[in-house]
């Protein structure tokens, strides 16, 4: 197990290095008016040259690259071009909001998807299954920004006229936590709930037809125990594997959700930074998101090997 973990961690490091290098090549070396972003449109040529020197942009590319990697290794993400704040501090301010959003949506799509999928698979082509299959098709074809816009329109616009409050803008970690988060969670998770329902249903149907499930039934086990203890455990294996892939999708999609609902999270930070060309913040957020994805994949690998002992390394 230790060797397996070590192997995966080395691979994770490799991925992080690749992401860092590509981001460096794309953003640091692209000919953008970096000095203008810092000094503003009316700065003099000397100021621009001074900034150019201060940023180390006049040094050889390899030296710049070395300094960049060294900074990353120390957790130093540099300073914002726009207001000079440390990128780590900017991210730290926004992190709680985004964590709330992503964790809540992850729980919602995993629990919701698995529950609906299992219930559909118990009675295939029954009434519940047919309704949920229809909803799954709608869910799979609704982009999350469109759903979020409609939710806002219905639950804030129309319901607001009726004097009902379903949503409050603002930082989530204060009073009315649920009221601030439920609509963003639904908006972010709906498409994935649909995908997980479909995946769980298919995998559950396959497992429920297996010989060992028939054996369990023949032994006289109650149906609930057959479904929950015997079938679900192996049916979950592909679902967990898919979840590892989707963590990145979920993190990427926070840009949209935070934008629509006006949540002051990391997604909005990076969206704003992109529009003003604040490269260090963009790089910092990209690195953090990739780190989360890599860590989540590591965790999923471990969980997966518990669910399916065959995947455990010898």
């Amino acid at each position: 197990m230790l060797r397996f973990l070590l192997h995966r961690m080395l691979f994770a490091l490799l991925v992080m290095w690749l992401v860092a290098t590509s981001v460096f090549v794309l953003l640091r070396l692209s000919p953008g008016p970096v000095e203008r972003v810092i000094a503003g449109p009316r700065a003099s040529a000397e100021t621009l040259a001074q900034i150019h020197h201060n940023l180390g942009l006049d040094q050889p590319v390899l030296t710049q690259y070395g300094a960049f990697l060294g900074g990353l290794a120390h957790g130093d993400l540099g300073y914002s071009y726009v207001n000079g704040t440390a990128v780590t501090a900017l991210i730290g301010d926004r992190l709680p909001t985004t964590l709330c959003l992503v964790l809540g949506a992850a729980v919602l799509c995993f629990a919701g998807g698995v529950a609906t999928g299992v219930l559909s698979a118990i009675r295939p082509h029954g009434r519940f299954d047919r309704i949920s299959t229809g909803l799954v098709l709608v869910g799979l074809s609704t982009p999350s920004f469109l759903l979020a816009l409609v939710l806002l329109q219905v639950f804030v616009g129309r319901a607001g006229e009726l004097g009902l409050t379903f949503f409050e803008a603002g930082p989530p970690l204060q009073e009315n936590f649920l009221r601030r988060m439920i609509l963003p969670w639904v908006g972010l998770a709906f498409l994935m709930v649909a995908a997980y329902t479909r995946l769980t249903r298919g995998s559950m149907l396959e497992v429920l037809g297996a010989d060992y499930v028939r054996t369990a039934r023949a032994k006289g086990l109650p149906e609930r125990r057959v479904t929950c203890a015997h079938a679900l455990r192996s049916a979950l294996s592909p679902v967990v594997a898919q979840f590892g892939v989707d963590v990145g999708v979920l993190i990427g999609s926070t840009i949209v959700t935070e934008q629509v609902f006006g949540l002051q999270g990391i997604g909005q930070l990076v969206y704003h930074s992109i529009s003003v060309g604040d490269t260090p913040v963009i790089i910092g957020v990209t690195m953090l998101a990739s780190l989360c994805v890599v860590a989540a994949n590591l965790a999923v690998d471990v969980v997966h090997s518990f669910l399916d002992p065959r995947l455990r390394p010898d």
Partner: protein
Amino acid sequence: MISIRSRRGGPTAGAGWEPVPGNDAARLAWARLRRDRSAAVSIALIALIALIALAAPLLAAGTGHAYDGTYPDSGLDTAGQPVGPGREFWLGADQLGRDVLVRASYGARISLVVGVGATALATLLGVATGLAAGFLGGVADSVLARSMDVVLSLPYLLIAAVLATSFQLGSVPASVALTILTIGVFSFASIGRVVRAKVRSLREEEFVTAARALGAGRLRIMCVELVPNLVTEITVLASMMLPAAIMFEATMSFLGIGVRPPMPSWGSMLGESGEVFTTAWWLLAVPGTLLLLTTLSCVLLGDGIRRALAPRDHLAGSGR
């Protein structure tokens, strides 16, 4: 169970083999697809959307409104609010006094062009990578398979944003091309993984050994022997990729990192008018409905194609 493989690798394969009428895999699949009511409806809807896209210049001529033209005198009321659907603006005007109908019909072009283009690119890349990884094996396989895993798990929307910033493309065609490229590169891995798995099992089949015994090179085996056996998988995967690509484009344009103005896209139409939805419902309803109808019919069609080609197959559960 009908499989395309029987055409090539089965014991009947040979010089004098003629397909039995009505027993051809593609024809059977087509017959099944035609009987599928939801697939028929979705084909009709997609045809309708394509018609709207084709008719865009006609609509512009008929209304006298260009897609990037602003008509503040007729399109905005005295309070500066956009006017609703009426004689002058059939589906209303937006907050700059532009014609929503004309813009939405040009948006249909963008959606279809980017959707089909990105799907084609992703399929091409995915099949090439999957073939190479699955057939060559060894180091090539580990590197390719690992990189597909990485591409699948990256936060793609974030990286798409980084790409769009670093290239800063000004012109419309360049931004369309970059959008297609971005979507293709971030989507090929899901196709590549399935193709790789299929090729790994096909590689052990006797017809591959036979081809090798006849002196066929690796490239020939991959392109001439293996690809025809992958047609089912490729068709199903590509048809499931299409709605995802259309949604990806809409999301990118919504965030302003996709297709550039002045060219309208359903995503950018929704993104630009977010503030006035409460007073001007048509700004949400028109592009939103068109987008949802397009993706929904593509998902339904993809489902129909999957049912027709692979009635009970490993492809059944892999919807994303």
